[in-house]
């Protein structure tokens, strides 16, 4: 069956004798990996934030987050860096693809000889390697390649025209699907938890959203924050500022997820959801001055620890700045009441309309109670003290907001000028815009601040929403003088502000006198910050306290003052914001407990 051809044809292989060899003579030097080759790891240590997404995705367990001497833990950086074990690594590069900052890459280097087997476990970027500056190798493919969703789930909100004369809450809240989709984006790095002043267990309550175990999420929140309805709406969300997802996309909407959990539990379900035992025998009693976030938070934890708590509040309702500073469209009173009512339901006694220092002295409280916590906040508006501020139609934002919240009539004119670039300025601006709309059918408000828009302390969303509500924002101008004619305010003279702070970070605004403007208005409101009123501290008490050179009160880590029975927290110590107040209250409560057990001294 074999043909002659079948015998001869195999000999054509001899043709190869005349061909050049195809082998590479020196493969180590002549054969670099391809430009996209997945070789050895590189890590840009400055860019890396130690979020650990690489460790989480690594299916062989080759990556471990370790502490390294070269990196310090700070806000937004866990201080950990990935250590790679090449006994396990399969070079899939999913770690690179999921890296939240893009710091982790692979070089195209693939030859590494070492006698020591331990050498192959190393921390890229820290342990210097010859391929550290290799530009080739696997980088996360751009632009539309992601292993996560970069954009956050948009929060449904009232449109500008719907809200411009209404005090109904603007933000509508996530639906179940929206909340789960947003919770899914979380990579569980915990940077948020480290940064949150109250150290709320954010990754865990986000997981609870994902797993639809909302009551568990609610319990997790109450461990560190008894005002979740409030924080879910108006928290300054330091957590979101450091969110790992924020490096290449939108940070997780942590605040909205908190709100979603808090809203999911009905007022009458709190007891069932939290399953807290309220100790009956309360042999020691504590007085709390001021029913704001600090006081309420401390009252909650102290009540659960078995202390009898009595609160003294100058205003007719509890909540402090949360009620009297923040407009209803941001924080509706029913949400606030829900949180407060639960705290009061634990047996916390509260005496309204009682101003300590006037209606009752602090010394009296000291005598009657085992310990006193003061959280009186910053309710005294500061003035620019420019010529004209003594006019009767120059108001303080906090005063107007307080009066309006109490249901009292506040003055509204047709043309208003507001000075301030923070959230309080935005609050008064937007409140008055609504009232102008209701009264005059149009908005005529000019809000000016020293800071330009990029450095304005107000939240960007506040700024954007104020614009949508037709407010005339004028950032970057310094107020010089109020123009008054026939005892009537005509407007505000301003100069271009070049810088607000000097090199040392001190407030020292510089102006360009050649650039001026004039903002017309017949009423002027200052919202440039608030100061504390601690006149209730009698001389004897005050003499026993420590103050810094700049007049700030000094307390220890547990907010205990030098007068050891007296604890001071909240905006007058830290902040100013709600979450610091809550965190201070929690810590002060623990401090008071330790103090009363004899375990805490002021040092």
């Amino acid at each position, binding site marked *: *069956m*074999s*043909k002659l*051809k*079948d*015998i001869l*044809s*195999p000999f*054509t*292989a001899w043709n190869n004798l005349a061909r050049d060899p*195809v082998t590479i003579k020196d493969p180590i030097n002549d054969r670099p*990996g*391809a*430009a*996209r*080759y*997945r070789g050895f790891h590189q890590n840009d240590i400055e860019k890396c934030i130690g979020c650990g*997404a690489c460790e*989480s*995705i690594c*299916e*062989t367990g080759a990556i471990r987050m370790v502490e390294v001497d070269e990196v310090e833990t700070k806000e937004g950086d866990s201080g950990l860096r990935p250590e790679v074990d090449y006994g396990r690594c*399969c*070079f*899939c*590069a*999913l770690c690179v*693809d*999921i890296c939240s900052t893009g710091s982790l890459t*692979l070089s195209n280097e693939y030859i590494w000889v070492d006698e020591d087997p331990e050498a192959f476990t190393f921390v890229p970027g820290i342990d210097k390697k010859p391929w550290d500056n290799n530009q080739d190798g*696997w980088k996360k*493919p751009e632009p*539309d*390649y*992601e*292993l*996560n*969703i970069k954009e956050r789930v948009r929060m449904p909100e009232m449109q500008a025209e719907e809200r411009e004369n209404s005090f109904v809450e603007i933000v509508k809240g996530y639906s179940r699907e929206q909340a789960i*989709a947003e*919770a*899914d*984006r*979380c*990579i*569980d790095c915990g940077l948020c938890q480290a940064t949150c002043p109250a150290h709320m267990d954010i990754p865990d309550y986000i997981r609870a959203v*994902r797993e639809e175990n909302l009551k568990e999420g609610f319990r997790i929140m109450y461990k560190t924050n008894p005002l979740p309805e409030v924080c879910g709406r108006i928290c300054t969300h330091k957590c979101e500022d450091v969110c790992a997802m924020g490096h290449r996309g939108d940070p997780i909407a942590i605040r909205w997820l908190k709100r979603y959990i808090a809203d999911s539990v009905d007022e009458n379900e709190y007891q069932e959801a939290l399953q807290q035992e309220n100790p009956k025998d309360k042999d020691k009693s504590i007085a709390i001055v001021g029913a704001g976030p600090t006081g309420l938070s401390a009252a909650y934890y102290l009540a659960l620890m078995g202390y009898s708590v009595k609160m003294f509040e100058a205003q007719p309702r509890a909540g402090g700045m949360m009620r009297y500073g923040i407009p209803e469209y941001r924080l509706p009173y029913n949400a606030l009441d829900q949180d407060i009512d639960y705290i009061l339901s634990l047996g916390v006694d509260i005496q309204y309309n009682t101003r300590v220092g006037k209606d009752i002295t602090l010394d009296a409280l000291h005598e009657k109670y085992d310990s006193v916590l003061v959280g009186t906040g910053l309710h005294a508006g500061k003035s620019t003290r420019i010529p004209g501020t003594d006019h009767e139609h120059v108001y303080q934002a906090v005063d107007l907001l307080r009066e309006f919240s109490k249901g009292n009539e506040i003055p509204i004119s047709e043309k208003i000028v507001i000075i301030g670039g923070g959230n309080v300025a935005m609050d008064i601006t937007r409140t008055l815009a609504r009232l102008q709309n209701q009264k005059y059918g149009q908005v005529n408000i000019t809000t000016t601040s020293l800071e330009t828009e990029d450095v304005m302390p107000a939240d960007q969303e506040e700024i954007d929403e104020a614009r949508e509500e037709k407010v005339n924002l004028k950032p970057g101008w310094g107020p010089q003088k109020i123009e008054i004619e026939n005892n009537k305010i005509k407007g505000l003279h301003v100069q271009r502000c070049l810088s607000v702070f000097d090199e040392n970070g001190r407030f020292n605004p510089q102006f360009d006198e050649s650039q001026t403007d004039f903002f017309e208005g017949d009423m002027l409101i200052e919202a440039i910050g608030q100061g504390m009123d601690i006149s209730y501290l009698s001389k004897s008490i005050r003499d026993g306290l420590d103050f810094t050179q700049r007049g700030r009160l000094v307390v220890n880590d547990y907010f205990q003052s030098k007068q050891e029975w007296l604890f001071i927290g909240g905006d007058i110590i830290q902040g100013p914001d709600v979450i610091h107040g809550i965190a201070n209250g929690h810590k002060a409560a623990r401090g008071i407990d330790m103090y009363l057990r004899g375990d805490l001294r002021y040092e």
Partner: protein
Amino acid sequence: MTMKKKNDILSRLFGKEHRPQENKHNQPADADSGKSSDAGKGGGTGSVPGSDSGASGEAHYSDHNHNIAPDHTEDKYPRNGKDGKPEVDLSSGKYTKVWQGPNHPGVTGNMSLELTICGDEIVDAKTHVGYLHRGFEKLFERRLYMQVMPTCLRMCVPESDTNEYVFSEAVEELSGIEAPEKAKWLRMLVLEMSRLQMLLRVVPGQGGAFGLGIGVQWGMYVRELILDLFEELTGGRIYHMYMLPGGVRGDLPEGFRERAIKTMDEVYRFAQRIDDVMFNNSVFKKRATGTGYIDPSWVDRFGIVGPNARAAGYNRDVRKDHPYLLYDQLEWEVPVLEKSDVYTRARIRWMDMQVTADLIKQILNKIPEKGSFKAPTPNALNWRIPRGETYVKAEASRGEFGYYVVSDGSAYPRRITLRGPSYTHAIALLEKMLIRTNIADVGAIMVSLQTCPPEIER
């Protein structure tokens, strides 16, 4: 496509060798094979599987009569017992038991054959697996879906991309995501490149199994060129980890198209050379022709797929029968031959190799320049796949290769199981084929079935 055009494609590649398309076996796999098969083809005198006398499950053991059975006297072979298996009386002194494998150059991986021989002829064969169990399928149950990707492709080392594809496609199907068009083209490109590099090993490997080593080196060289292309495109040479749920991990590098097309010329050249030294080699022909016959009637009974079925006259290819990705936009025809022995199966693969090179060229010219290569997918760390189950299959170089994926709605798969062609080719079919063959041909028969033990033990 018109019949003329079909035949044009194949005749351009293979001249008159290609079998005409009017194929009597060209029918769905679930058809009753017993009735459709050509019972007389075996040329023997005994029963044929699927015919009336052999309808019981064990019947294939009584069938020792096909056209390659050597001359023998009835006494030489043990008689079948009630269970249809040969009853070997080892005390008779006529028979010897030998083990081939698990480590042996004549097996295709870690599995073992328990052979009962009489002289150098096999009278009974049992296949043993269990040497390679890595527990992949169980591991998957403890992995996030995205983490399954770098593991699943290790279930079949030499042709890992099919794993990547079927897994990604299954996840996409369950979660209602569709990969963008460009990703589909790139997936096809990688799948075909993967098939090609595999065939570049197996085609000359058939010669290697008979001691003809020379083509193997040539094949390996061309395969390295393909691996270079893989390295450029995917960042890896063997484990590409290129496809993942949602799409692929990179676009074509600059100049890739031209380089790849040029490399295909090497493939055609290699095909010509292997044709000269292997297929037109009197020794190879003598050893391979008639050896390892698969009766076409066994095809459906044993679930024979891929080139093994196509060499037995069955026009069976998932890419044509159940087109996936964009295979229906390519012009090509499935090679089918009839003689169903080792030589024919090697030849089918040789034809496949060139068809594949042709497909790669077509794909390269059709990959769109613009467009995304990955659809947005949720956070890989929390990706929960909706409850459901699916079976996704693709044509690997060995035939239909599929994953059955069950999701319980969590972020971890409830069950992933692989069904590879070797599951029957290397166990039941091999046991049957080895009887009455020469012990020297065992290795060649395994290679001709392209058995892959890793896909038996997952």
